């Protein structure tokens, strides 16, 4: 876990020519947030593939799922099969997942993470989806955590401080931060101001705020000034590296 999000250096040029260069310094043992919900349009598929090719190991991934939705055709309804966290798991790069959906959605077709987990080869921290999003928001906002009613009386309350607030039991949930966030957006300007499309914001817009280095893949980069400031969803202050995936296979 990184202690603070303070940047190593000031960025004058955020644009990276290739996916490979954008992920080249992710070290073994890094904590990596991976954006999206699980659909083709919202996963940073190209950055995930680049991280697989880069090969960093012993990763802790923070993501909605440990992968595999695309293989099952859930997201494939929206187009091509999805490249997701599963390729990192299959390649034995993941040590631990912090996620809400670690298992296959179809029990008869178990995923790579689930098999490795049941064989005690990987670690898992179960986090309810909304708690996951809020822990990341807290991390990005410089908070230590928050109290939530979600999970009281369930497996996720184990080891957590419990407090009665407004007559309701609540659990303390700590903030989450990462060394790197791999996210997807629709368009970026050269300053890193991002806009999304449809359901693409999901975990992407939240994770953008919570990593020491946020790397975004976009369908298109435009000049600063071409995106109306009124519609920017992720201000460029949160974005460190931008890769345009159009034309990169």
């Amino acid at each position, binding site marked *: 876990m990184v202690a603070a999000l303070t940047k190593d250096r000031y960025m004058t040029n955020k644009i990276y020519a290739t996916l490979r260069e954008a992920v080249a310094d992710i070290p073994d043992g890094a904590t990596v947030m991976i954006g999206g919900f699980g659909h*083709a349009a919202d996963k940073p598929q190209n950055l995930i593939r680049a991280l697989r090719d880069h090969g960093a190991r012993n990763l802790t991934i923070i993501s909605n799922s440990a992968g595999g939705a695309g293989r099952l055709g859930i997201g494939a309804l*929206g187009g091509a099969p999805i490249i997701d966290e599963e390729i990192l798991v299959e390649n034995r790069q993941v040590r631990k997942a912090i996620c809400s*959906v*670690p298992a296959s*959605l179809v029990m008869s077709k178990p995923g790579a993470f689930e098999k490795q987990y049941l064989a005690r080869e990987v670690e*898992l921290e179960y986090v309810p989806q909304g*708690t996951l999003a809020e822990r990341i928001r807290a991390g990005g906002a410089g908070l230590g955590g928050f109290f939530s009613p979600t999970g009281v009386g369930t497996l996720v309350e184990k080891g957590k401080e419990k407090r009665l607030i407004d007559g309701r039991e609540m659990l303390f949930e700590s903030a989450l931060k990462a060394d790197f966030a791999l996210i997807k957006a629709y368009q970026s300007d050269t300053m890193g101001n991002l806009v*999304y499309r*449809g359901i693409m914001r*999901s975990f992407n817009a939240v994770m953008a705020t919570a990593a020491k280095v946020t790397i975004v893949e976009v369908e298109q980069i435009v000049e600063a000034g071409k995106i109306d400031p009124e519609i920017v969803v992720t201000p460029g202050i949160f974005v460190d590296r931008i890769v345009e995936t159009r034309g990169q296979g």
Partner: protein
Amino acid sequence: MKDRLDKQTIALRVAKEFPDGAIVNLGGGIPTLAANFVPEGRTVIFHAENGALGFGGVPGSKDEEKSYYLGANGLPFSLLPGASFFHHADSFAMIRGGHIDITVLGALQVSEKGDLANWTFPERGIGNIGGAMDLASGCGRLFVAMEHATPKGQLKILKECSYPLTASRCVNLIFTDIAVLRVAPEGLVLQEIAPAWTVEEVQALTEPRLNVAADLKEIEL
């Protein structure tokens, strides 16, 4: 063997319970089907936890609708006037903050106190919490839509859930293939019953003792 309601018909009955103007989140499985049965003359605003509000119906043929407009269930949707998109933290602020009026979820087990177990069972060794714990602990009213017992005849409506809980004391109404049950302080109340079924037959598939509503009626379709 008596006829039971099929999944579509359970979903149809659930949808009759959506008031005009309600904001509704539908879980996977039978609940998803309820979107197709909103009664004539009512407008229901659907919420998808992956970040969309105000969608509906049959998707158009445009590519953007197929890839950028997808619900949490993976099904494409079309946007209705007044729709909006948002990120996950805001989406679950809507859920946890009590801004969603009704959530409909599937279940593996429900207790007579309204406890819900729907994310895993011990033999599996792993499971998917997804958004279910947040939905179950945060929404205004929680409906369960499921088959009354498993295909092998195992009871699902129990005195106490034996599977890991999703949330405790959260379920308001249970819609099954043979009955509609209300969770009340005194226990479960049998409100409606499938055509040709008797109270005794429903009770035989239900572990806790059922209180029979004074105005018990056949499931209205």
